[in-house]
């Protein structure tokens, strides 16, 4: 079982994971109602849809799926009065290595998702929504389907929700083992029954030309759950938990070489790497030192533990000044991590200690991307395979002097040259592992004596 701290660490503030981690908390409607369930939906249905969108904007909620796009801005692209059908597709394809939060929401608290979804649908004039769940969560699909039946039978979904005249149909749609379907336009193609090749943007922004070429909101499971809590707490209180550009709490999934891996729900920007790893997660395994951290899912650029990063902060006179900061003292919010060249992504933090070989770790990720490239764009299809073959050869003792430069060159020629962000996702690990740990790649390339 994924460990959860009980009671929560003082740095935590659980809103999404408040109830579902409790012993005996069941995924049924009765339990949910006993914990105040669907009260926020009732309140939301008494608001104007535009007020809900404004609240989500004011809450500074960023998408929790990886890209971190401001949720309210995304919703703002939907014109409620355009007379077209609108759709919401909940992205429960959770497949980014290092990320394992949506699994628990789907299995343990499906009504939280459905309540957030009903509020989101009301706010965007949506009458039909799909929850896309990866097929490796077969129990989750059944649990969510059962929750949909319960909610429908009790007037929280279906026709004339809570007597307000608002209708919403929700269905579960299962994936079939392809990581690319987590990319929002690929997910829509998958849902349309086609090969899930991502669509090119522009013009195919989902909010304009989404599912069935109609305006569509695609949001991550956790993001949709946060909407409920923005209504429950009010946008101002919700936003106050986080930083000005990154409101609310974020579930951090920590795995790898820490004493206490698990899921920790922490206000955005409330912990540094040092606090998360050495305090919340109980430090490393005995006798080990920290080597590297992948901060936001496997696509996020790796950080080196002994590096001093330059970050721009507001000085005492209000002007931006550059400051040297050890990696461990970097605050884990969206804008800070972006400013040091990586990302908070999906919240998947993979910790690696000094026992780890960086060529081995990169090779593992390169194999992942080579296996998962959908094959639509040549640079990604060929490049991800070349990179994985090269790191595999280096690991097997067949490194060549030109390997590091060739790896860098391949990665540099994928990013920015593909239809979807998978191109960046598969390049960033290679680019960052080579940049942060050049000595290990030189050694594997047989260049140890010259460096």
């Amino acid at each position, binding site marked *: *079982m*994924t*460990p959860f701290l009980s009671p929560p660490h003082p740095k935590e503030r659980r809103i999404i994971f408040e109830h579902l981690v409790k012993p005996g908390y069941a995924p049924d409607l009765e339990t949910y109602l006993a914990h105040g369930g669907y009260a926020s939906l009732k309140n939301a249905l008494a608001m104007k849809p535009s007020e809900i969108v404004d609240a989500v904007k004011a809450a500074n909620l960023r998408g929790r799926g990886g890209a971190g796009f401001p949720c309210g801005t995304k919703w703002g692209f939907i014109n409620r009065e355009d007379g077209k*059908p609108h759709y919401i597709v909940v992205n429960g394809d*959770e*497949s*980014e*290595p*290092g*990320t*394992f939060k*949506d*699994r628990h929401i789907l299995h343990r608290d499906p009504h939280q998702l459905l309540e957030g979804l009903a509020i989101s649908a009301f706010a965007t004039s949506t009458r*039909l929504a799909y929850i896309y769940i*990866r*097929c*490796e*969560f*077969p*129990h989750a699909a059944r649990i969510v389907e059962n929750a949909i039946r319960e909610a429908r039978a009790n007037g929280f979904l279906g026709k004339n929700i809570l007597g307000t005249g608002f209708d919403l149909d929700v*269905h579960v*749609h*299962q*994936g*079939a*083992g*392809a*990581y690319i379907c987590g990319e929002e336009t690929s997910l829509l193609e*998958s*849902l*349309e*029954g*086609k*090969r*899930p090749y991502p669509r090119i943007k522009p013009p195919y922004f989902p909010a304009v030309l989404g599912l*069935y070429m109609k305006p569509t909101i695609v949001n991550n499971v956790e993001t949709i759950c946060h909407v409920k809590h923005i209504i429950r707490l009010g946008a101002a209180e919700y936003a106050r938990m986080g930083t000005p550009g990154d409101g609310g709490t974020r579930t951090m*999934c*920590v*795995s*790898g*070489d820490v004493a206490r*891996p*698990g*899921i920790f729900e922490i206000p955005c920007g409330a912990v540094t790497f040092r606090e998360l790893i050495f305090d919340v997660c109980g430090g490393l395994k005995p006798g080990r030192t920290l080597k590297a951290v*992948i901060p936001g899912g*496997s696509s996020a650029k790796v950080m080196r533990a002994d590096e001093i990063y330059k970050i721009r902060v507001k000085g005492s006179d209000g002007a931006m000044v550059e400051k040297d900061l050890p990696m461990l003292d970097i605050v884990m919010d969206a804008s800070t991590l972006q400013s040091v060249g990586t990302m908070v992504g999906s919240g*998947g933090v*993979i910790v*690696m200690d000094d026992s*780890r070989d960086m060529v081995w*770790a990169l090779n*593992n*990720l390169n*194999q*992942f991307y080579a*296996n*998962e490239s*959908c094959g639509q764009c040549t640079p990604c299809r060929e490049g991800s395979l070349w990179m994985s073959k090269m790191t595999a050869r280096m690991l097997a003792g067949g490194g060549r002097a030109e390997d590091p430069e060739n790896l860098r060159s391949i990665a540099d020629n994928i990013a920015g040259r593909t239809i979807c962000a998978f191109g960046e996702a598969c390049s960033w690990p290679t680019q960052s592992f080579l940049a942060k740990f050049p000595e290990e790649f030189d050694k594997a390339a047989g260049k140890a004596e010259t460096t």
Partner: protein
Amino acid sequence: MMSESTTRQTDHVTPAFLAEADEIVSRYPVSRRSASLPLLHLWQNRFGSVDDTGIEWIADRLGLTPVNILELVTFYPWFRREPAGRTVIRVCRTLACAMAGSHEVKEKFCEAAGVDPHAGHHGYGCAPPTSADGKFSVEFVECLASCASAPVALINDDLVENIKPSDVASIVEKLKSP
């Protein structure tokens, strides 16, 4: 534990199966084609794999040509055109599980289940390596989203977590008993 593949009865679509398929199609009022994936799941769960009969049947139900369905079977890793073992063991290969020893765990599963990891053909649409008695298939899959309880495996429908190499033989032994 649910058995993933049942006996092959591709010539026998029952009224209950048909009713289930129709209910699935009704969830997609805008486009029947959207029911492609769920019907593929329904077929593979029922018959163990998606052969030409299944591809043609689904295409026909949805008003598509067979290639519209075949191109999904050959894209998605989950679908196969030939039957797998009665119990399919999918060991997570990706970083956190690999760091926690998933390679050794997978080897142990192959040993205990009598699966030659190099047996059979490889590629999309093929069945994973399967034991001679047809009871087990073992394969590596990518991240199963349970990295804090690594290493993990999906055994038919159930996630098994924190697997120690020394646990594997007894896990397989339990799966052998009906």
